[in-house]
């Protein structure tokens, strides 16, 4: 029942928000949402307490037959792979609700959609049945589309449609792979049992795994399937970006590990060398593309493309250490990219632009955004993999786990890690260092030296969540055992199982 509460709280919350009597003010709606999400966070923490880290398999399982004819069961379970993601989901949805500024347009639907997404994501992480996973995977799609297309920026229709088409294709491929599995094996067993050669010939396995790879590859996103992401991010509002980067992309990597690696271990081993190269390309492409961006949000979006590539590399290597690295990378990318988007959002709201050619010297202590700037330095350093913060230990584990298997791909990915420092340093240097001015630099020094900019103080509703994220990033970087304790047993078992059959 405990796991079901992780679905019930957000779904009932959505219903409550939609059916709340009268016409509550946006602030009130926000408060109700925060209460619901705090409850969800508490429930997630309770799950963590009940979870036995020493045990490898699924825990706290719940099983009800739902539609036996098509193999759909209500089967929930949590293990060391999904638990950290459930926690990240709870935490980051709360963050995005807290940082939502009073929105004037349909606050009721906005908050309901936010909570609905959170519930659907929980469902996807907890589902132990392929079809159930797919239902939740699709359920999150429409609310997010609404959040972008109703509350987005100027070019929101284009971005939202693109997002919808790409992710719909992703969903179709995943469903196709699941149904194909039933058809090819001739049974409607949609449980998480590994598909081995005695059940299905290698050719069929590779076709199905290929469909899953492309399907989840769109969601992660991997180059060249990433095109929807920068547009979606630039048009989405800050809380939605936080959610998208921090939580929703993890559905893709989670799916890759759970349904690619765990379901098709043999085919996975066959494709792994190619996947490692794909990961390296994705990392380098994302990093190089980020260097050339002048829009801060686009830069962060491309950095996401690069950093999610590490997860594919780790999954391809498939050693206990690399899989642990994959989970670390998912969690730390969740925290760091959420923080980055949050800070970029603050800059955007205070200055009205995200253009790196226009912003200068925001670190100015009296008239600029010193606290935001300081946290931005922490965030970019964490993203660049500086020790003492979450990014370093994640990357170290990924590289350490992969280098023996795929030395070339690993070394190339490490070059990508070096390039991260390049673009984020450019960001900090251009926007935060130098003299404060919010004018495009011209040849006229009098114009450049305008010092009449006075930015308003950032409200605690934004700084406190950002500080909490900073604390999380540094805390995970200094005490990584807190996370590995939860995941170690499950992931070791997962890697050994996959190695054993291949």
């Amino acid at each position, binding site marked *: 029942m405990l796991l079901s509460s992780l679905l019930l709280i957000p779904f009932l919350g959505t219903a409550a928000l939609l059916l709340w009597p009268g016409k509550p003010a946006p602030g009130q709606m926000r408060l109700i949402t925060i209460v619901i999400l705090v409850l969800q966070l508490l429930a997630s923490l309770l799950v963590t307490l009940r979870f036995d880290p020493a045990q490898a398999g699924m825990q706290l399982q719940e099983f009800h037959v739902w539609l036996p004819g098509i193999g759909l069961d209500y089967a929930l379970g949590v293990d060391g792979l999904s638990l950290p993601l459930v926690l990240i989901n709870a935490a980051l949805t709360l963050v995005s609700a807290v940082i939502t500024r009073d929105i004037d347009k349909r606050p009721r639907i906005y908050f309901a959609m936010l909570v609905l997404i959170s519930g659907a994501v929980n469902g996807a992480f907890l589902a132990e049945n392929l079809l159930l996973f797919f239902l939740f995977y699709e359920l999150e799609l429409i609310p997010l589309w609404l959040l972008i297309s109703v509350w987005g920026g100027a070019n929101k229709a284009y971005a939202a449609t693109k997002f919808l088409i790409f992710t719909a294709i992703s969903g179709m491929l995943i469903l196709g792979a699941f149904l194909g599995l039933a058809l090819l094996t001739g049974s409607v067993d949609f449980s998480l049992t590994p598909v081995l050669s005695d059940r299905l010939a290698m050719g069929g396995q590779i076709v199905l795994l290929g469909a899953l790879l492309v399907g989840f590859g769109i969601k992660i996103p991997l180059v060249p399937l*990433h095109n929807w992401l920068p547009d979606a991010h630039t048009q989405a509002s800050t809380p939605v970006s936080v959610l998208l980067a921090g939580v929703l992309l993890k559905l893709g990597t989670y799916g890759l590990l759970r349904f690619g690696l765990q379901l098709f271990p043999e085919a996975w081993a066959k494709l792994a060398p190619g996947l490692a190269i794909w990961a390296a390309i994705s990392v380098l492409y994302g990093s190089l593309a980020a260097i050339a961006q002048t829009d801060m949000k686009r830069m962060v979006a491309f950095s996401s493309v690069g950093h999610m590539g590490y997860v594919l590399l780790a999954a391809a290597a498939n050693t206990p250490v690399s899989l*642990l690295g994959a989970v670390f990378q998912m969690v730390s990318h969740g925290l760091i990219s959420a923080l980055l988007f949050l800070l970029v959002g603050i800059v955007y709201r205070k200055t009205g632009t995200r253009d790196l050619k226009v912003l200068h010297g925001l670190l100015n202590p009296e008239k600029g955004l010193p606290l935001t700037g300081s946290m931005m*330095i922490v965030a970019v350093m964490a993203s660049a993999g500086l020790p003492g913060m979450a990014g370093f230990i994640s990357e170290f584990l990924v590289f*350490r786990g992969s280098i023996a298997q795929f030395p070339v791909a690993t070394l190339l990915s*490490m070059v990508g890690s070096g390039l991260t420092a390049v673009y984020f340093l450019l960001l900090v240097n251009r926007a935060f260092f130098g003299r404060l001015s919010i004018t495009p630099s011209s040849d006229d020094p009098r114009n450049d030296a305008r010092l009449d900019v006075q930015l308003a103080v950032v409200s605690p509703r934004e700084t406190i969540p950002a500080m909490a994220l900073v604390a999380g990033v540094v805390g995970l970087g200094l005490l990584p*055992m807190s996370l590995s304790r939860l995941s170690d047993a499950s992931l070791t078992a997962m890697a050994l199982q996959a190695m054993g059959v291949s």
Partner: protein
Amino acid sequence: MGSALPLPLQLIWLIPVYGFSGMLLSLPWATGWVKRNGPRPAAYLNLLVTLLAVLHGSWVINTIYQIGPQHLDFPWFQSGDLNLRIGFDLSLTNLAALELVTTMSLVCQVYALGYLDKEWSLARFYALVGFFEGAMSGVVLSSNLFMSYFLLEMLTLSTYLLVGFWYAQPLVVTAARDAFLTKRVGDVLLLMGVVALSAFAGSMEFNDLYAWAADLKESAVLGPTAITLLGLGLIAGPMGKCAQFPMHLWLDEAMEGPNPASILRNSVVVTCGAIVLMKLMPIVQLSSLATDVLLAVGTISAIGGALVALAQVDLKRAFSYATTSYLGLVFIAIALQKPGLALLLLFAHGLARALQFMGVGSIIATSNCQDLTELGGIGTRMPATSLAFIIGSAGVVGLLPLGSFWCFGLLVNNFQQSDPWFAVVFLLTNLLSAVNVTRVYRSIFLGQPLPKTKRAPEVNWLMALPMVSLSVIVLLLPAIMQRLDPVPGIASFPLSVGLVVAASGAIGVLIGSLVPLNQFWSRSTTPWIRVIQDLLAYDFYTPEIYQRTVVSLVANLAQFTRWFDLNVIKGLADGVGRLSLATADGLKLSVSGQLQSYVLTVLLAIVLLLGVLQVGRGG
């Protein structure tokens, strides 16, 4: 193992924590939460914790004298075959390096109180120095490669923030960027080595790594190419940290930062880098190519750095290149398997260079000028500074019997038989650096006062006190060195070698005093001399070369990726979208309303689908 050890040793983990806690203690003032009474309390708190670190360190040294070297470690992260630990190697040399770091940090912090007297963000400076000190004291004590790497990267970060301290100035912005990126390149290459070692050797403890390296020749786990790459990766990190050619340009630009940080950077930060290299040397030496690269880099840096230093008109830069040059000598000594001598040279250089930089700082603080052409005649007005500068310079140059003289003697004596060319490199570098300090001394302290030095009172006591104390330490350094290296003693070289070293220094001083001063900066009319002058003054055009190679390569690749992303990938996605819209528009017209045609289409699709799946199942 811990329970039997005396208390100061068990609490050894506190030593880096002192520095880091200094950072945390400064935060209320650095962030501006506390504004009453100014930022001074943050400075006092930092001084207090640094003092604690110095005292704790000397207590540990005393204990170690009695009970011999110790090793302590604590678990940090464990998963599968990966075991990362926090380890401390408490040997006398490591602890001596620790005392160097903490004492220098303390002295610099007192000095900074005077130097940054009117700086409004004093608390931020102290927070960064605390961070700096914590990372450095961890590096020198570290017993495993992972921890060393971890802290070296933290040093990179704090260097970036310290160089970027005055972040509103355009030159500072580029300097901070270059400092970070140059070191980061070295760090990423080092990380490749660290990751590879961790995966192939298993343990990260230096001692286990040495054992693994010794076995490697027989076991042949790694091919020769892999070993060479590993060696090159491992030396890249220290090369960046020690500002060696071609990764040296950050140190010169970093002079844009506040001077107290420059003191630390030129004396102890580079020392930390060299100590890490020293610990890695048993692995690096597996590859003869890596060792040769190390020797080449050291030689080029030693002589190139000394020559470039001669052509600088900026007071701080003239000495920052000299640091590069001396660290080049240290690299040679490390590559030739003389770690003990390398360490002695690091000590002698670190302290003397710090004193030199303090003198430089005093001059800058008084005259607000660091252009050699505008300074002159300060000698009699600033006696303490003048004396400190002379002692510091004498400590750097091998002429008078101070620290460097004995080091040069030992080094030349060791190499004159086996590697005579490197002995020549040492003597030549000594000569060039003697020329440099002499000409700088002449232009600052002698001659007529110039407009900017007419009013030149001696600095306040907060700057004078650390300067004078450090002068005394530099004068006493030979005695300390004798204690560190009792066998065979620092004077274990024949008189002839001593005379040669002194002669090289004396010739340098002579040249430095005879050449007309303006020849160092005014451009010659002779074309070929002008070419050489420009080459040296512009640091062999290194920034330009970087701009045209690495930077433009990355920038072009980035632009290409952006173009590809916009035109090919986005174009493709948009094209598919447009195509589907167009076909939908076309198909709209084909709707006939005939039920039979719909059924036929559906049937065909199903047959096709089943056919494909059947093929998939069979294959």
